C-alpha cells in the first residue's frame, strides 16, 4: 500500500496474520499487534508498549489520529495515482461558501493583492486576491454560486 502525506508517497508492506503483524515502512520494519477496540478505535502494541489510535477511511482519504495529532493521508490506488495533485494557474475557492462579489472580467489587468472574488461562508467574507500582477484569462465564478474548495474561480494568464 502507498500512503501519501504532504509531498511524500510512502510504500508500506503489511504482513498480517491476524495476530502479530510485520510492517515495513520505507525500509523500516515494525512487529506490532493491532487490536480493534471500537469503531475506528485501535490499540497498537509493540512488546509491552501500548498506544491507542484512531483511523477511518473516506474514499481514498485516510484520517489518522496518532499521538495527539490528526493526519490526513491519501491512499494511492491505481485510480488515484498521479491525480491527487492538480496543476494549473487557476485561483481556487479557499473554502466552501457562496460567491458574493466578482470584481474582475476577462481581459482585466490586475495588480498583486487585488481582490478578484469575494466568497462568504458563515457570514464571514474572504477575498480571493491576485497572487501576482497579470491579466485575467477567464472568470468562472458568478455571484450567487455555491463553491467548494478547489473549484477554480478565476484564471490568470
Amino acid at each position, binding site marked *: 500500500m502507498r500512503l501519501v502525506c504532504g509531498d511524500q508517497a*510512502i510504500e508500506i508492506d*503489511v504482513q498480517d496474520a491476524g495476530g502479530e503483524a510485520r510492517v515495513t*515502512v520505507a525500509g523500516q520494519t515494525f512487529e506490532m499487534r493491532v487490536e480493534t477496540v471500537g469503531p475506528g478505535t485501535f490499540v*497498537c502494541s509493540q512488546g509491552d508498549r501500548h498506544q491507542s489510535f*484512531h*483511523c477511518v477511511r*473516506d474514499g481514498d482519504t485516510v484520517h*489518522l489520529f496518532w499521538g495527539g495529532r490528526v493526519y490526513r493521508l491519501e491512499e494511492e490506488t491505481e485510480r488515484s495515482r498521479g491525480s491527487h495533485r492538480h496543476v494549473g494557474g487557476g485561483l481556487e475557492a479557499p473554502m466552501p461558501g457562496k460567491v458574493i462579489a466578482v470584481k474582475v472580467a476577462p481581459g482585466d489587468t490586475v495588480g498583486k493583492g487585488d481582490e478578484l472574488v469575494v466568497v462568504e461562508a458563515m457570514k464571514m*467574507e474572504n477575498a480571493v486576491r491576485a497572487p501576482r500582477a497579470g491579466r485575467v484569462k477567464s472568470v468562472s465564478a458568478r455571484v450567487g454560486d455555491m463553491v467548494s474548495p478547489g473549484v477554480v474561480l478565476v484564471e490568470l494568464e
Partner: protein
Amino acid sequence: MRKVLIANRGEIAVRVARTCRVMGIATAAVYSEADAGALHTRVADEAVPIGPAEAARSYLSIDAILAAARRTGADAIHPGYGFLSQSGDFADAVARAGLTFIGPPGDVHRTMGDKKGARRLMAAAGVPVVPGYDGDDQSDAALAQEAARIGWPVMIKPSRGGGGKGLRVVRGDKDFLSALAGSRREARAAFGDDVVVLERLLERPRHLEVQVLADQAGHVVHLLERECSIQRRHQKVVEETPSPALSDEQRLRLCAAGVAAARAAAYVNAGTVEFLLDPSGTFYFLEMNTRLQVEHPVTECVTGLDLVRLQIEVAAGLPLAIAPDTIIARGHALECRLSAEDPWNADLPSAGRILHFSPPEGPGIRFDGGIAAGSEVGIHYDPLLAKLVTWGATRAESIERMADALRRTVVLGVATNLERLQAVVDHPAFRRGELHTGFLEEHLGALQRVACPPAEGLAAAAVALSRASRTPQGARTASDPWESLGPWRLG
C-alpha cells in the same frame, strides 16, 4: 414553566436542554433542513423543523420559531446565543405571544444592541468608554473626519451586531472608505443595519468581561470576571477565569463597573459587560452582551452555579438567591473553543462529515459539544463544534489539564483548530499569563505543519486499513466495528 423551546442549534442547544432536564422542564428543539438528525434534535424531548438551511429562513425567522412554539405547546423560549438571542423584536414577539422569553426584555436588547446608544448611556453612568465617535452623522465625510480626529489606527464597528462581523481596523485615511464600505456591507448582510461607530484601536489590550445577573425586582449581582484575550478575527478562542491580569483591587473596581453598567441598562437576566484593559491597567467599556455567553462554563466551574438554571429562575419571576459580594470562586477554569476551521488553510471554515469523534474525559474536564460521529458540518452556521473546559485548583493546573485533554480530543473527517489550541496552551507567554488580543498574530501566526505521522503510526494505520479492506462487502455484519461506523462508505 413546563416546556422550553430552544431556539438554537449545536452545543448551546444541547447544553440548555441538559439543565431543563435536571429541572424537570420538558424541551423542544428546532432544526433547519441542514440539521435534521443533528445532536441537539436528539437530546431534546421533541424536535420540530423550522425551514431551510439558510438561517434567515429558519433560526433567524421569528415567525418560524413562534410557530414551532405553538406547535409544541412550549410556554417559554430560550434563545441561546447568536441568532435571535439579542433581538429586541424577537423578545417582544415572544412576550406578545404570551410566552416567557428567557433573557432580557426587548427594550434592553435595543438599548445595548445599539453600540452608539450604549456608549452614550455608559458614559452618562460614569462607566469609562474607549475614545471614539458615536454620533448620528453617518456620512462618509463625517466618519472620515472623525476617524482622523480620533487618531489611527481606528476600528470601524457596526453599531448593531457582534461576533466580529463587519469589524474593520483601519491604519490610515487611504484605506478608510473602502473599509467602511466593506464593514457596512457585512453589517447589512448580518444585522440588516449599517450604522457604525468608530473607536480608537487600543494597543495590546486585554479583553475582560464581567458576568452579571439581575432579577425582575432590580437586584443585580456580578459573578466575577472572565478574560478572553486570545482571539482570532475578533472571535474568542480561549477564555478563562479568574484573569491573571487583575489585582484584587482592580477586580473589585472592574466588577463594580459591570454592575453599574447593568443597572444603567435596567438589565434583567444573565448578561455580560465587556471591557478592554490597556497595558497601563485602565479599563474601558466595550459593549454589553444581552444573552448567555459562549464562555459561560468557566464561570460555572469556579462558582459552582448553573447559569441556565439561574436564567430560567429569573425569567420565571423568582428573586435571585445570591447576595451581592458573596460569590466565592474556587480555583481556575479555562475554555478552548473547538471549531471547524482549517489551520492549514488560513483558518478558513471547513466542512464535511465527522467520521470519528471522541471527547476527552477525566478529573476537572467538561466537554460541551454539539456533534457526534456522523454529524454533518456545513457552511451555513458558525463553525463552533464544541467547548472544552478544564478546572484546576490553580491556573497552572487547569492549563496542564487542558494541554492533556486537547491531545485526547479526537475529531476525524473535518479539519479543526485543535493544533492551534494546543499551541496556545503550550506557549510560554500563555503560561505566564501575558495575554493580549493580538496574542495569536504575535506568537502563533503560522503553525508548522507536520504532514507525516511517525513511521510506527503509519505502520499501525496500514494494519488497521488492511483489515478493513480485506472484509468482503457482502460479509459485513452488525458486529463488524467498521460497519457500525455509520452511513459512510469504506473504500
